[in-house]
């Protein structure tokens, strides 16, 4: 890992620690914009920090660690898609988006259909699910499940319905978006045909990596917090951290989180500029699957190790658990990951 990236990670960590755990969107989104975190992956000629996708994942990890509410993940998917897509005024768009004009994106598989009506107009129908902070976004990035099209769709227009879907995870603000015969603006189409299929694949892979990074950060922070609690809490006249039964469980969790982190960093290192390829897709699925299972395992164990206090709403234990559980169901269909990974070997 290069020094710039380490420094970036440290500074992001520092800023987010000052804001405390699970800081709201109103606090964390302005930081994301003002501190230039949206620029992290961009090349210098676009005013970027040139840290590439690993740089973005370092920030995803830190946001996961602090349970930040800022919708950085969909924003970064949209910025990357705009950079890769064929918009006429692409650079102006990039500038708009990196200075805070927020475009969101679905974090789960959606059922959205593009059809060409008799009039020659392209219409969007269907439902996009798990779209973060849609009420604050100007557009949504849609990769049509049918119709081979990736496009930006303005949200404040007739035919687009925002349905707020409160989740147990209070650090996310998710919406369903229902589209009824929404006309697509040709000027906002990023890709069509095979280019759209490739762009969709890249976005899905990036989403897998980003969610994995969130999990790695969350799992590691939660384990630290749990160990600290066991050091402090005394029963039977000794700190709980002295009991070998508890130490060994923490050691296992440390091994799991280290493994997920190693796989994430190793895979990011191997990506190079091949993020559109089948190997990148395989690595994304693999690290997402492992990181989610590790985060869930750590969260389940952390609650048990905290005992009663972990069941109270004022203790942050449950915030990690709920984010871990939600993360497992974002991205592709939860069970499909392992099956896809196995298919790579069996088929």
């Amino acid at each position, binding site marked *: 890992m290069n020094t710039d990236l380490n420094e970036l990670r440290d500074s992001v960590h520092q800023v987010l620690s000052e804001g405390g755990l699970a800081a709201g969107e109103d606090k964390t989104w302005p930081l994301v914009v003002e501190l230039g975190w949206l620029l992290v992956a961009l090349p210098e000629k676009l005013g970027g920090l040139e840290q590439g996708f690993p740089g973005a994942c370092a920030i995803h990890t830190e946001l996961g660690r602090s349970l930040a509410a800022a919708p950085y993940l969909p924003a970064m998917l949209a910025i990357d898609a705009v950079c890769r897509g064929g918009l006429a005024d692409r650079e102006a768009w990039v500038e708009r988006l990196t200075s805070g004009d927020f475009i969101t994106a679905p974090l789960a598989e959606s059922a959205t259909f593009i059809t060409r009506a008799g009039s020659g107009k392209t219409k969007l129908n269907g439902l996009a699910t798990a779209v973060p902070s849609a009420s604050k976004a100007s557009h949504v990035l849609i990769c049509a499940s049918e119709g081979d099209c990736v496009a930006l769709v303005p949200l404040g227009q007739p035919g687009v319905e925002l349905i707020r879907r409160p989740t147990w995870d209070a650090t996310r603000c998710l919406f369903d978006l229902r589209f009824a015969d929404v006309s697509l603006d040709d000027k906002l189409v990023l890709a069509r045909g095979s280019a759209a299929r490739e762009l969709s694949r890249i976005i899905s892979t990036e989403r897998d990596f980003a969610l994995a990074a969130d999990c790695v950060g969350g799992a590691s922070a939660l384990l630290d917090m749990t160990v600290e609690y066991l*050091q402090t809490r005394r029963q039977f006249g000794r700190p709980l951290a002295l009991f070998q039964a508890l130490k060994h469980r923490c*050691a*296992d969790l440390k091994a799991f989180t280290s*493994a997920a982190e190693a*796989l994430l960093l*190793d895979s990011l290192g191997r990506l190079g500029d091949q993020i559109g390829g089948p190997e990148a897709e395989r690595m994304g699925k693999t690290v997402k699957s492992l990181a989610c299972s590790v985060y869930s395992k750590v969260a389940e164990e952390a609650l048990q190790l905290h005992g009663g206090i972990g069941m109270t709403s004022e203790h942050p234990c449950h915030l990690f658990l709920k984010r871990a559980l939600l993360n497992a169901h974002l991205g592709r269909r939860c069970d499909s990951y392992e099956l896809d990974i196995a298919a790579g070997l069996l088929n």
Partner: protein
Amino acid sequence: MSSDPTPEALRMEVRSWLEQNVPAGWRAAMTGTDQEAFVRAQRDWFFKLVQAGYATPHWPQGWPGGGRSLAEQKIIYEEVARADAPRLILYFVALYHAACTLMEWGSTEQKEKYLPGILKGDVWCQGFSEPNAGSDLASVKTRGELRGDRYVINGQKTWSTMAQYADRCLLLVRTGKSEPPQGGLTYLLLDMRSKGLSVRPIAQITGDDEFAEIFFDDVEVPVEARIGQEGEGWAVAQSTLASERGLTLVELTQRMRYSLPRIAALMRERGRAEDPALRGELGRLIAKVDAACALADRYLLKRISGEEAPGDASIVKLYYSRTLREFTALGLRISGLQGQYREDFTRGGGQETGNWAVDFMNSYNWSIAGGSDEIQRNIIAERLLRMPREPKNWQLPSDRS
């Protein structure tokens, strides 16, 4: 051997050498064979590697293929795994434990006496563990009593890999009382032909006997064969144990990844390739195997850059041993009843040979030997997570009387 300009050139050089030199059909030849034939095959393979300079890349310059950086050694190990070459079990202690201990602690005379012998095929074994000193190595009780210019050894060692074929032994004995117990230990280089010494192979649950016990009845070791000072044995032993520097786990995790198709083949063979539950399990296993590889890889990179923290190695070993257990258990389960019928096993074939019952049983080697999983968990908790050590003093109520 000249140093290669690029890592990629070295990789290609090793790869093409292995393609030409790994004995064809060695797996079949080593399946169901006796141990003597295995030892002969190991010797042949060892001499080939020595000649090519791939047995001692970690030795200093001047030795065959020596002076390689850790990064270059890693490439050699990765290629050995990729080529599915035989594991060099018989010579591991000689090439790593004995050689590295001699390089670090040995006198000039000792280096001149022992190192060339290793390249000529001297087999070394390790005499550390005892019946009552396993995970708790400092409680070694085998006595070494200095009488004039020799130590007289009495006691018993155990779990000594291939000791029945060894020429020499790295021996840790107690020469004095001390608190803490690490203090009274002394490290000796023992000739296995010494009078009063007997070796008894241990019959393992797999039917193999790759370990042995060593018994000492007034065995004499000359003072010149002591390495380090008297009482310095614990520090010397730490060098021995640190000598393989993470390379073994790079090799083993890579071998585990290259063995995944064996599970796929087994699923097809048993008509289970379309079973969604098994496919899901395989998918989860693949992710863990990939993570084990990434852990071992990144651990070695940390060592190369000098950023290793105490306890890091324990994470790699613990994760590997758990993943290996799951791997072999899955193989055994898919095998069904077929897996319960006794079949010949492959010597030197690594941890995932496809004889899943034997592989499963052998996986316990990795969770018990070299610091058990429980010891690794203690180290991770205490060194990395900074949880407190348990108090040293304890007493059961029944002990008080």
